[in-house]
């Protein structure tokens, strides 16, 4: 059975690693729903946050192959209820419809914000789960959406032992 999994990989900050990781998905014909790369609380270590819709079996194999990459320290996967995740979405709406329709009430009700107003359009921001940003999309559609962009999901894991603890325990690079 396919479901949404969040894969988190911690790595050195080296050029080309993103490619080395994504080709593992490409080879197995797995579509990446979202991918973000960011720094972490440990200096010099980067994290990849990858969301896929796949079977657990496939995800396990992919994670093992990601962890096999020489510059990846650790890769793990989580189900939706094991992470707190958020994404940000921006919507560009014509100013004319934004004024004519009752946009303000919609924003308040769904906890969205207007982040910019120009002479001919406004920009709305919504942070939340995919379902939240999709819901707002549906509601804004009658206004006429000129542009829509989503950041991809960023997850915080719920597990007790922080990965940074583990990463800090890793030996340093050593030379003979």
């Amino acid at each position: 059975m396919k479901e949404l999994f969040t894969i988190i990989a911690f790595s050195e900050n080296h050029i080309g690693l993103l490619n080395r990781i994504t080709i593992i998905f490409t080879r197995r014909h797995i579509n990446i729903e979202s991918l973000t790369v960011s720094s972490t609380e440990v200096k010099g270590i980067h994290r990849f946050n990858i969301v896929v819709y796949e079977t657990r079996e496939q995800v396990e194999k992919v994670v093992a192959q990601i962890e096999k990459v020489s510059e990846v320290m650790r890769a793990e996967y989580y189900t939706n209820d094991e992470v707190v995740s958020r994404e940000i979405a921006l919507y560009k709406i014509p100013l004319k419809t934004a004024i004519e329709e009752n946009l303000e009430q919609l924003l308040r009700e769904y906890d969205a914000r207007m982040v910019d107003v120009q002479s001919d359009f406004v920009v709305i921001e919504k942070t939340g789960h995919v379902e939240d940003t999709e819901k707002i999309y549906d509601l804004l559609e009658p206004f006429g959406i000129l542009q829509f962009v989503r950041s991809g999901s960023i997850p915080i894991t719920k597990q007790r032992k922080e990965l940074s603890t583990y990463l800090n325990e890793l030996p340093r690079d050593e030379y003979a």
Partner: protein
Amino acid sequence: MEEKTRVSGAEALLLSLIREKVDTIFGYPGGAIMPMYDKMYDKHDLLNHILVRHEQGAAHAAQAYAQVTGKPGVCFATSGPGATNLMTGITNANLDSIPVVFITAQVPSGLLGTDAFQETDMISLSMPVTKWNYQITSAEKIPEAVAKAFYFAKSGRPGPVLLDITKDAQIQEFDFHYKRIKSIRSYNPKPTLDKNQVQQALDMMSQSKKPLLLAGHGILIANARDELMEFVDKTKIPTAVTLLGKSVIDEEHPCFVGMLGMHGNYAPNKLTNEADLIIAAGMRFDDRVTGDISRYAPNAKIIHVDIDKAELNKNVKADLAIHADIKDFLQQIVPAQYYTCNSEWRQEFKRLNEMEKEKVIAPELYPENGHLRAGEVISKVSQLTKREAIVVTDVGQNQMMAARYYGFKNPNTLITSGGLGTMGFGLPAAVGAQVGKPDKTVVLFTGDGGFQMTAQELGTVVQYQLPVKIIIFNNNFLGMVRQWQNLFNDKRYAQTTMPTPDFPMMAKSFGIESKWVRERDQLDNTIEEMFSHEGPYLLEVSIEKEANVFPMIYPGKAVDEIVLHEDQ
């Protein structure tokens, strides 16, 4: 602290190689790599460079060199076409876990990404088929990059790495100082063996009446043959090998039960599905070994030991997956184990192997009439070399025949392209094997098809007077593909027949002694003549045109559906 010296990037690279105890490089010069060849000119007493005739040859030779010497192979190529010509060899080394450090030159860093003359993005190209790769754009990065390259290539599950060095980085000068790598925080090449798992394995063994040990290439890589033999001698467990695991056990050992897989032996394939315990040691359950995976070993509990965690539970779900160096595992289990396998189970292998002997092996080795057969030639070579030669093969029927009939004895004496199945691998690999072991007899078994793919390396054989013994089985067919067309496509031999050149005449044009054998009564004398000849020798043997390799597990079939002949 060693003294720093100011050198160019090119010289630093060579000095770094010397610090990694490299003495042999296989390569081919070109524009972007000229600074390195220029510096090599001064170091010819320390670095022996083998000039091949095509970069693919350098890649295969470096891999074979690594396999016979146990040291990483090193391979040089220039940017663009020189680099892309390596790709097949890199991929081959990757699939067969062979440590090779590939060094490709690159256009000057200012021209990167501009489609400059002979520019190829080798980092992106080689990414899926290297264990690690890195582009060097400034000279001072060279020592650390080389140190990492060697560390990654040879530690853990070995594999190819690639360093791509821009021309300007080869020319820049800097203060050279070299440090070898001891450990890298993101990379754990030596997993810690969980001792509880050793006990679990022992418990599983003690419950087993029909155990089967599958010995793979990992044991050779881990240099764990002695430990394996102790384990086998003590437990008497029937031991089968994978293609790349060949030579891990003396084939005359009473517990050796044959090769697994599509053209392996009858007994180990058939009995895989009767076994109640499979101990898979340093092997990866390749699809050529398992056949239909849904019907693989249905009665067996599976213990899988591998150093690569990603192999565990990848193809076959293990009941006990042990992430460990196989040498550690065997060292732990040998003193502990008290288990001995019963002789009735071993007799079953014997009984089935007798069937194979009668139906397949005897007709192949002792044909009374008809054309020559590959098996009888290989068997003759085996006798004359006392099973002591390093055997190199190409890919296809010649490979399966060599694997089946040479009768391997010493570790690392079969050099063959396993995972990738690279036709054209044979001749350049024979070059690398002979360079690595100049005092050993190196025999190449190849086919007329594969030989023609890299035949230009005869030039390398002659230039370095490598005394390789080349045996071409000529059936004027791409034999293995033809066999499939015969069995599955109603003998519709689409594009598998080809005329061949006069191979002896070709060899002679290179200055290589050569003969062509067509008749059985010429065979023994000619083979003896070949081995008494001191230099390289090419022997063309005309064999039965439509001979098939059997036994065979047909594609999509289960291992126990292996057949001894096509009417079965």
